[in-house]
């Protein structure tokens, strides 16, 4: 089956159709909605596989299909579809994980009143995410990017009647939007500088050599190359979406959403979109590498942020007690790894880790979901425990995921991808600090994963929910098993001995020999972490929910700080939040006091003038008229006394008067 | 007398004038005009008195015919004893009237009581002076003939008042007041209905008005005023108002037995009564004559081919036809109530006549319209006539509901 570029639109269109069906179907049409969503995703999966086959025929070619969106000026604003191995691989991953999670959701959400709506939103998300992947235009990508954000918002706030969920949804949307503003400005700048937003357009696209050279040749404030500035702005967007420091605060809160959502959006796909974006526009960010004299390379920033995030996420994860939040911070950490890989110039390893991470993190989240489902919505690991026996399948698959995450060697995919990243970081010429941070994070990752498994599955049930736990139905466990298989085996497509994936994505990829020492160090570090975790948590399992954490016992202040996520939320509330409130208050006060005051002052002046005029009129002018009128009135009264009312006498007077006048005239004439 | 030189007309046409001239030719020149005038007066009086006599009979016969009874048919011709369908009835009536006792109520104003019928008859006869009876037969050629006609007609009201007041009878007086109210009310539409004619003709002279109607459209269709939209409406208004002015049914309230005994005639009998009666018929004849003159083409023949018949013949024919309609209406329509009567005048006829005046003005202004515009002219004028008629007519009939008697 071949899916050429001009048919790529079918891949996002099908889930969109399913979303439309879901939106207009009646509330009770649960089977229809879920069925159409799953079917659409399945077909999309098949189409993606077709697209992959198509793309693999000639991996170096970027097949595009561009079209006009609407007329603008003498030309038009153009968008397009793009088919290359990156798109195709991501598409396959997203559709496959999505399909499995959809199926899982059908079981997990079965009792929810808004079941239909849930699948509608999920399909919407799928459509937007797939659209994002196939876009050949930064604008189209941005549009889908925002729609993905909308779907995320809707799904985080799915249980909107809970204030915490509503607040988390808003926080997610706004935090990512902060990053998106950077992306938007970068996009505008790119558009303005090159006159196009298409990635590949027969030599005119922004990722092609000509425009890139032009971009890196210009400089802007601070001696930065324009391409660097644009790249950094775009990275802002990626940082927001992928939960990179300092915009990572929304991701843990996003766990307020249903667990399949966390698995799909906030672990496997959407949060990885930032990584995908940077990988997609990698040539743009890398353009300044040819300028050794540049004050700042965009990729260095990416690497730094990635390293910080990787370390930060791992550290905070240690101090969390909510099963989903632990996983969330681990996601933050892993995304940091990916950014680190991008920053050090090995974008293919970033994508490799992205793919493996997608499967094992989805697996972990679904496993967590299964646990939560089984334990009657108990998420606190302190009140779980002892679930190994009742939840055999879940435990087994969860353990696979855990080992993949921790990087347990050889059999698990996470090991290979992480190893590749560490390898790349080690080879970075600029600094070894990111590499060091990565190594530390490896230990911590192994440690907190062990802690998680031990607390949840070992020991005895410490809570009401855990005690009554029962294995989830097959509709949930089958996806778990499938994902576990993937999580275990996917690593073999990118081993140093057979770097198929890397070669496919980047034909110029070359394996450097001599990485085995590094691998050994890494294995030791993983073992250290696992051992520490075992020692602290599994050897003597927690006996009651109220018991203090072993780490807490040893370093209470550190643990408190970690549990408090190092105070980022408080910090932001005190700075950005307060600034926002102050600005709002300022704007409002300006309106109410200054502008309205000015208007009132003017009105008052008008009123005052009116009052003065009125006083003048009433006292000065009217007074004169009153006096004159009084005189006239008295005169008239006096005169009216002469009116006897006897008409005859009037007539007589007239006659006599006439006679006299006539006589006078006659005599006058005679004389 | 007439614009036409007498000898240019055919003999039949100028026969009456020729006869008169022959009678007075022996007189000296300076007296001849007086004699001519007197002869004309006598002729007119004799003709219309005879007509009066015949009309009384005709009316009774026609009423009888309409009411499916024979009417008077018994009075024989004097001395011959032949009953010629009651042809002698007027004669019998006349003799009866002349021989009846003349009663004057006690306390009545004798002078006025006597003067009233005389004045009435005198004013009635005055109106005959300006009607053109034929091409050469116009007693007095006046520049303001139409105005004269109505001035003289207006004076009859005074006589009616005199009769009512002089009788010293409550009913007489009340009836006279009613009669006056009716006469004044209907004088307005009457005058307004003829104003369009004056407007179109541009003259108050009766002879000129008649002359102007003497053309034929396409050589066959007479262009009498009645055959125009405004003229038709004006004629109808004129006719209705004339019915009321001459106290004819259905507007005969002032003298109807069922209303106020016999109105201002209550205290009259004998010869005075006959004079009133005569004056009333004279008034009817005069108004009909004026209607014929103004609207029906006067003495003009309806088609040119019939112009050989003397013009006074045509006039007489039209006059008699109109008089017949008077009687026909009397036989057909029920009498109006006093409030309906006044409402009809003020709320219906007067506005219609006013609108009709505008229609006529439009007609004059659009006289140059030809071809399809002529059709439009008819259409517009017709609308102007019909529209108000329908609107006002609806309102009028809405007002004809049962009357609320305020003091009953």
């Amino acid at each position: 089956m071949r899916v050429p570029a001009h048919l790529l639109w079918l891949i996002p269109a099908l889930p969109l159709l399913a979303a439309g069906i879901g939106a207009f179907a009646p509330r009770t049409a649960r089977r229809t909605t879920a069925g159409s969503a799953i079917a659409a995703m399945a077909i999309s999966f098949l189409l993606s596989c077709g697209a992959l086959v198509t793309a693999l025929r000639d991996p170096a070619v970027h097949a595009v299909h561009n079209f006009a969106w609407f007329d603008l000026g003498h030309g038009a604003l153009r968008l397009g579809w793009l088919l290359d191995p990156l798109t195709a691989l991501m598409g396959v991953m997203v559709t496959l994980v999505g399909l499995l999670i959809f199926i899982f959701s059908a079981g997990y959400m079965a009792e929810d009143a808004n079941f239909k709506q849930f699948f509608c939103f999920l399909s919407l998300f799928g459509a937007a995410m797939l659209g994002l992947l196939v876009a050949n235009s930064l604008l189209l990508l941005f549009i889908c990017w925002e729609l993905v954000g909308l779907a995320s918002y809707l799904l985080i706030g799915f249980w909107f009647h809970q204030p915490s969920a509503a607040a988390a949804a808003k926080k997610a949307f706004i935090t990512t939007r902060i990053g998106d503003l950077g992306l938007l400005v970068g996009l505008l700048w790119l558009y303005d500088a090159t006159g196009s937003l298409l990635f590949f357009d027969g030599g005119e696209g922004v990722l092609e050599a000509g425009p890139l050279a032009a971009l890196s040749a210009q400089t802007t404030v601070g001696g930065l190359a324009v391409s660097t500035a644009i790249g950094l702005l775009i990275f802002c967007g990626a940082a927001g979406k992928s939960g990179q420091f300092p915009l990572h605060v929304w991701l843990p809160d996003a766990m307020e959403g249903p667990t399949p959502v966390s698995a799909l959006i906030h672990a496997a796909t959407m949060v990885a979109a930032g990584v995908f974006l940077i990988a997609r526009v990698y040539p743009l960010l890398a353009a300044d590498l040819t300028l050794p004299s540049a004050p700042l390379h965009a990729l260095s920033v990416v690497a730094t942020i990635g390293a910080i995030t990787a370390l930060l996420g791992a550290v905070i994860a240690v101090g969390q007690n909510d099963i989903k939040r632990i996983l969330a911070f681990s996601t933050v950490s892993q995304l940091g790894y990916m950014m680190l890989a991008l920053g050090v110039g090995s974008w293919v390893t970033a994508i490799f880790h992205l793919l493996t991470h997608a499967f094992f993190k989805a697996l972990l989240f679904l496993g967590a979901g299964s646990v939560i489902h089984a334990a009657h919505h108990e998420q606190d690991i302190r009140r779980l425990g002892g679930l190994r026996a009742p939840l055999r399948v879940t435990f087994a698959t969860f353990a696979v995921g855990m080992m993949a995450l921790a990087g347990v060697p050889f059999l698990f995919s996470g090991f290979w991808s992480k190893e590749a990243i560490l390898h790349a970081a080690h080879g970075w010429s600029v600094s070894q600090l990111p590499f060091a941070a990565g190594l530390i994070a490896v230990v911590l990752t192994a440690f907190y994963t062990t802690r998680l498994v031990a607390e949840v599955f070992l020991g005895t049930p410490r809570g009401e929910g855990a005690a009554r736990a029962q294995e989830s139905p097959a509709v949930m466990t089958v996806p778990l098993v499938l994902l576990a298989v993937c999580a275990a085996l996917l690593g073999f497509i990118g081993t140093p001995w057979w770097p198929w994936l890397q070669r496919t994505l980047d034909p110029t990829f070359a394996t450097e020999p001599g990485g085995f020492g590094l691998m050994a160090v890494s294995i030791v570090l993983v073992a250290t972490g696992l051992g520490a975790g075992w020692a602290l948590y599994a050897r003597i399992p927690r006996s009651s929910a109220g018991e203090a954490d072993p780490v807490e016992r040893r370093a209470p202040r550190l643990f408190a700080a970690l549990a408090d996520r190092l105070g980022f939320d408080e910090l932001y509330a005190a700075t950005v939040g307060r600034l926002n409130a102050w600005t709002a208050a300022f704007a409002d006060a300006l309106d109410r006091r200054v502008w309205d005051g000015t208007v009132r002052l003017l009105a008052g002046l008008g009123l005052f003038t009116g009052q003065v005029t009125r006083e003048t009129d009433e006292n000065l002018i009217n007074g004169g008229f009153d006096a004159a009128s009084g005189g006239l009135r008295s005169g008239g009264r006096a005169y009216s006394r002469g009116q006897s009312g006897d008409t005859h006498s009037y007539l007589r007077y007239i006659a006599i008067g006439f006679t006299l006048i006539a006589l006078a005239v006659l005599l006058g004439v005679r004389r | 007398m007439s614009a036409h030189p007498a000898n240019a007309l055919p003999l039949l046409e100028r026969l009456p004038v020729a006869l008169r001239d022959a009678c007075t030719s022996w007189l000296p020149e300076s007296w001849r005009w007086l004699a001519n005038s007197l002869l004309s007066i006598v002729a007119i009086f004799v003709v219309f008195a005879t007509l009066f006599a015949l009309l009384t009979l005709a009316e009774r016969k026609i009423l009888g015919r309409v009411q499916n009874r024979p009417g008077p048919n018994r009075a024989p011709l004097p001395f011959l004893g032949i009953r010629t369908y009651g042809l002698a009835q007027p004669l019998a009536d006349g003799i009866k009237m002349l021989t009846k006792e003349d009663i004057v109520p006690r306390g009545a104003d004798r002078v006025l009581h006597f003067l009233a019928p005389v004045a009435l008859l005198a004013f009635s006869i005055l109106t005959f002076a300006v009607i053109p009876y034929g091409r050469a037969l116009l007693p007095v050629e006046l520049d303001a003939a139409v105005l004269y006609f109505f001035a003289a007609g207006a004076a009859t009201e005074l006589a009616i008042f005199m009769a009512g007041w002089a009788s010293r009878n409550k009913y007489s007086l009340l009836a006279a007041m009613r009669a006056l109210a009716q006469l004044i009310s209907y004088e307005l539409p009457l005058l307004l209905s003829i104003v369009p004619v004056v407007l179109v003709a541009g003259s108050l002279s009766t002879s000129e008005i008649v002359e102007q109607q003497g053309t034929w459209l396409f050589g066959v269709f007479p262009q009498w005023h009645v055959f125009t939209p405004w003229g038709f409406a004006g004629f109808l208004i004129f006719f209705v108002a004339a019915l009321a002015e001459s106290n004819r049914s259905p507007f005969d309230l002032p003298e109807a037995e069922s209303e106020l005994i016999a109105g201002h005639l209550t205290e009259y009998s004998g010869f005075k009564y006959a004079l009133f009666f005569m004056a009333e018929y004279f008034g009817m004849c005069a108004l009909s004559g004026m209607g014929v003159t103004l609207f029906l083409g006067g003495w003009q023949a309806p088609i040119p081919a019939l112009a050989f018949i003397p013009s006074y013949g045509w006039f007489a024919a039209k006059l008699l036809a109109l008089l017949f309609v008077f009687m026909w209406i009397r036989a057909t329509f029920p009498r109006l109530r006093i409030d309906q009567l006044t409402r009809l005048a003020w709320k219906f006829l007067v506005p219609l006549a006013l609108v009709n005046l505008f229609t006529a003005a439009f007609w004059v202004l659009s006289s140059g319209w030809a071809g399809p515009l002529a059709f439009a002219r008819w259409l517009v004028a017709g609308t102007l006539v019909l529209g108000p008629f329908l609107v006002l007519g609806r309102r009028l009939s809405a007002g004809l509901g049962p009357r609320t008697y305020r003091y009953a």
Partner: protein
Amino acid sequence: MSLAFLLIAFLTVATAAVAMALRNLVRSALLLGASWAGVAAFYLWAGAEFLAFAQVLVYVGAISMVVLFAVLLTRPSRDEGAVSPASAGRLLPALIAGGSVLGVLVGAIVGSPLRTAAKPPLAFTVRELGLQLMGPHAASLVVVGALLTVALLGAVVIAAPGRPGDREDPR
């Protein structure tokens, strides 16, 4: 000077004088009608034919009627139409005033050397009258029309009985 004029003048003045002196209001009014008819006759004599008919139409046909109506409507209920004659208290001053006015007028007229046109008057036809009315005097005609309308409405308003609430009967 024609006999006709003298006759007309005499009858007019005589009827007017008698009318003014009569006790019986109705007769007064009727006689005045005759007097006005005399004036019309004077117009006719003077050649103002249209005016004569208008005078008859207006005065005899309309004003007389209105006067008679007024007389009957305002008649005291008992005595019919008769009113008290002029009292001496008013008659004397009236005669003096009237006499003095007459004296002054007669004196002025007789003393004036009035010239009369030699040529007989041209016929002033109705058509010309109409043209004059509609031409140079159109404005006056409109004003008079308005005046008549207003007067008619005013008369109706004044004479119409008031609303039930109005004080109509002083008793």
